[in-house]
């Protein structure tokens, strides 16, 4: 008797299927299964409920036990910049975050820095009304950096607590659009020390492995401080954030669970890990 525990290969295969179907991706999945196999080879036999809690522990470890609190400016408005590819929920999430902040007694200005897409400004204005935030906008096709700058200046002048900059959706493969985003960030940095204090990548939970490329390019371009994972009210599990956290160390801040103004929750790593594999 070697003392080596039986590794139930069928069970491991089943767990691998669960993780892959949750969009963890083959790389993150294989590393988690390897950790599991290692643990079970150290002698303790691993049944499926033990395996599941070991996997959840590992996922929580990768995601970070407790996401750090949002950064705050030392003086002047705290600036949050929302970025991401097209259609992920940036504008909606901007409205939800604004509403949450206004409800807690903070004052909020929204910068309508998507000056390109049809009715983008009108869409944000509706969210301004719903949340109680003021919307700063320019003409369509104007310079997004100029809108961001104006919004910051208006915020600073009026003693506003938060300025949230909603940017246009852009594919990370479009270098001219990524340059435009870098300019928005530079201009904010010149307007206010440390701005933007938070840069949140908005990721659609239905996204597959491409989310990793999105995170990599946006992180290299403007530096990410967090992720907002949207549309978790669907059937997609959003497992790609595990790979994002593991590779870039960017924590998930909030999850979007619907289209209404209150459909935003702070991220709970344990609850999320349990939803991926249970």
């Amino acid at each position, binding site marked *: 008797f070697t003392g080596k525990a039986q590794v139930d290969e069928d069970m491991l295969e089943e767990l691998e299927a669960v993780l*892959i179907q*949750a969009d963890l991706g083959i790389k993150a999945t294989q590393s988690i299964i390897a950790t599991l196999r290692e643990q079970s080879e150290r002698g303790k036999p691993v049944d499926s409920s033990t395996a599941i809690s070991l996997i959840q522990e590992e996922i929580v470890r990768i995601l970070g036990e407790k996401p750090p609190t949002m950064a705050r400016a030392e003086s002047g408005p705290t600036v949050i910049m929302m970025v991401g590819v097209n*259609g992920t929920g940036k504008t909606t999430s901007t409205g939800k975050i604004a509403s949450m902040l206004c409800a807690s007694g903070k004052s909020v200005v929204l910068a309508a820095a998507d000056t390109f897409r*049809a*009715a983008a400004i009108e869409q944000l204005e509706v*969210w301004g009304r719903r949340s109680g935030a003021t919307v700063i906008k320019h003409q369509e096709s104007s310079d997004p950096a100029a809108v961001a700058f104006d919004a910051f200046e208006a915020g600073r002048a009026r003693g506003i607590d938060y300025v949230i900059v909603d940017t246009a959706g852009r594919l990370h493969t479009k270098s001219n659009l990524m340059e435009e985003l870098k300019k928005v960030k530079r201009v904010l940095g010149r307007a206010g020390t440390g701005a933007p204090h938070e840069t949140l990548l908005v990721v659609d939970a239905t996204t*597959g492995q491409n989310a990793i490329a999105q995170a990599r390019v946006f992180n290299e371009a403007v530096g990410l401080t967090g992720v907002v994972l949207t*549309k978790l009210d*669907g059937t*997609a599990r959003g497992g790609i954030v595990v790979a994002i956290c593991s590779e870039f160390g960017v924590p998930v801040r909030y999850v979007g669970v619907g289209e209404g103004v209150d459909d935003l929750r702070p991220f709970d790593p344990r609850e999320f890990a349990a939803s991926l594999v249970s």
Partner: protein
Amino acid sequence: NLSAKLQDVFKNLRNRGRLTEKDVDLALKEVRMALLEADVNFKVTKDFVASVKARAIGSAVLESLTPAQQVIKIVFEELTALMGGQSAKIAFANKPPTLVMLVGLQGSGKTTTCAKLASLLRKQGKRPMMAAADVYRPAAIKQLQVLGSQLNIEVFTLGDKADPADIAAGAVERARSFGYDTVLLDTAGRLHIDEEMMVELERIRARVSPHEVLLVVDAMTGQDAVNVATTFNERMGIDGVVLTKLDGDARGGAALSVRAVTGKPIKFVATGEKLDALEPFHPDRMSSRILG
């Protein structure tokens, strides 16, 4: 990439002389990895690899001097055959107007695709109009109206307090009286598990009997693509798929997943934010993209 990985697999096995089934299994492991990395659904991948194996074992792979190339060739051919083969055109009604309805998850690109399709059909000699049936999303109607005015294509609306089925019916009526031969109906994004919203789609369909229902799917969709496609197909009966945002670098495995579970063809691909960025689907190009 897959070709290089397969070369490696077979290089190491080469010295043992003739290849065995076990050697092919090693190669298929790489194929499976490549498909999963490309976001092809887990179960669809399993079935696909099994069909590739059946062909690989039965074919010249075991005898071949270039087994890696043989495997790639089989995979590429199987993928292309699976995704192609069906008519990828819109089926126009014998008696106009033809009603084309766009459905899908939130943010997949329906509104933009609606305008692009209207523009494309006009270039093909049709007289299209659009109908704004998304009464939920802030400024959704405005969004379609702005696109309509950019194209100089009429957008029918009853405002955001109206019932989407009434909007659809009103649009068809408008088309009949003004001689439009195609109506492109833009609907609100919705979850396939939102019962109320799926019932709304069924009510619209019952009311106006669309000739063509197109499911709009984001090319970066992961494993969830099969759940979405299956449900929309079961509830609505889709006639085809539009795959959007192919101007990015998503491998687009969702294309294979959706085709495999619904049997419906991908009719168009959207390749940008501009209104001329809509092309017919090419299964061979999609296959090489998926294989990376």
